[in-house]
């Protein structure tokens, strides 16, 4: 059974200037199986974040349905762990308290919270920073906290909205390695939004390529490359060339 089922989803927003509906997403069908790492790739404005927000439950589709684990999505919930574009940590909580926030909401006792948090703090490589406040962390470290926070909930799926977009190239590569290591260990399902072709091909078991205005899925490409992936290998470039041709169809047809 598919973990995430997006069926015939359309989304339109009211454009206040023109007083008309603006179609952002046009009849999207997408399946994400258990243990898949699906990268949703597209130019900015193609509605990929909107699609992710609908899976998270922050937004509702105008038409169609979104199901996670067979259940229709109606509101945000702890079965879908989200890692945001900005880390969005609670600035008044320390690292471990941020990681264990979900348990606090469930009224779990402090000692158990602390112990569980430690496991996930260690998992994302932040051992020794448990008692730091978010403002004392670098961008990469903050995102690690965000990832640990989502993992701790043991969600059905993890949703990631360009989580490494604000990081420098080197930190980003390091985070990619870590994320793959964590994903391989926890065997979770990840839906990852990005506009980086290299990032999508480095991470995903599948890459769903989207076109803009209105957003449509052009193709879902299974990525059959050995890990760790070598972004300079010929096969990697074959995939990349194919994706580029999907993203720039006009230019290719002119040639």
């Amino acid at each position, binding site marked *: 059974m598919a973990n995430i089922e997006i069926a015939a989803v359309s989304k339109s927003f009211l454009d206040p200037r023109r007083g008309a509906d603006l179609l952002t997403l046009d009849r999207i069908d997408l399946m994400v199986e258990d243990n898949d790492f699906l990268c949703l790739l597209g130019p900015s404005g193609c509605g990929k974040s909107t699609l992710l927000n609908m899976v*998270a*439950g*922050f937004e509702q589709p105008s038409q169609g349905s979104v199901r996670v684990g067979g259940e229709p999505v109606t*509101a*945000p*919930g*702890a079965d*879908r*762990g*989200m890692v*945001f574009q*900005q880390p*969005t*940590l*609670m*600035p*008044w*909580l320390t690292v471990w308290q941020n990681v264990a*926030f*979900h348990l*606090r*909401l*469930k009224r779990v006792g402090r000692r158990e919270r602390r112990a569980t948090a430690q496991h996930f703090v260690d998992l994302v490589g932040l051992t020794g920073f448990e008692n730091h*406040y978010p*403002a*004392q962390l670098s961008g990469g470290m903050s995102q690690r906290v965000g990832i640990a*926070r989502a993992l701790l*909930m043991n969600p059905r799926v993890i949703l990631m909205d360009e989580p490494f977009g604000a990081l420098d190239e080197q930190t980003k590569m390091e985070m990619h390695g870590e994320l793959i290591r964590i994903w391989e260990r926890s065997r979770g399902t990840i839906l990852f939004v990005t506009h980086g072709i290299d990032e999508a091909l480095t991470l995903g078991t599948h890459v769903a390529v989207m076109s803009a205005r209105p957003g449509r899925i052009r193709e879902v490409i299974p990525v059959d490359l050995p890990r760790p992936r070598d972004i300079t290998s010929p096969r990697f470039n074959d995939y990349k060339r194919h994706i580029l041709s999907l993203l720039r169809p006009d230019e290719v047809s002119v040639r």
Partner: protein
Amino acid sequence: MRHYLRRFPVPLGLLAVWEAISRSGLLPAALLPAPSTVLASWADWIFATDGSSQTYSGHWLTDAMASLWRVLAGYALASLCGIAIGVGIGWSRIIETLAEPTLQMLRPIPPVSWIPLAIIWFGIADRPAIFLVFLGAFFPILMNAIHGVKICDRNLVRAGAMMGASQSQLLRHIVFPAALPSIFAGLRIGIGSAWMLTVTAEMVAVKSGLGYVLWDSYYFIRYDLVMAAMASIGLLGYLSDIGLKMLMRVVLRWQVATTVQGRTA
């Protein structure tokens, strides 16, 4: 120069200039008493040293406590109501529509203009003063609480919802802590108004406290005692602000580590 020593030159210099002017005889000594005279009267008011403050000799603690009690009672009430209603208005559209127009209409009315009604309603005692203190402190606390909730980052609320928070948990665990810096700003403005209004009330509607001594001494042309009362009010106001700042440093310690404030702490 050591850091804490820098606090002294400015006030000490001002006192010296003042003392010199008083002693020069430029003005009659009764109209501009020298700091030394004020200090002597103040000392008698507090410790009953030489009887120079006459009926008030040794009575300071009682007067100060009377004022302090009114401030604390009115201020505590204002904090409780201001924070609760402010968070409510900031969080809920319904509460906002119901309560805000009325409150915003009451807000521009100066608290002192309530004095006649306060006396009619509560008589001449603690209660009109507490009522005025409440009015003075309530609105700054309210406004800042509303503001603090409204500027709470929507993404933090989203993150909370994602982790399974109910509406009341969002309010308690995210919106309220996020609003705390702003709430404290309101509390600090409020404590200033609280002292102002206690003294005003004591001049008109109460027969005890520092403000009463101040006004009474004015009738008896004891400007040294007027000044001693002013200094007492200043001192107590300053101390209550320090207390608030200390509380803030504990509650908002996550800010101290990362802001300009932390650099000077």
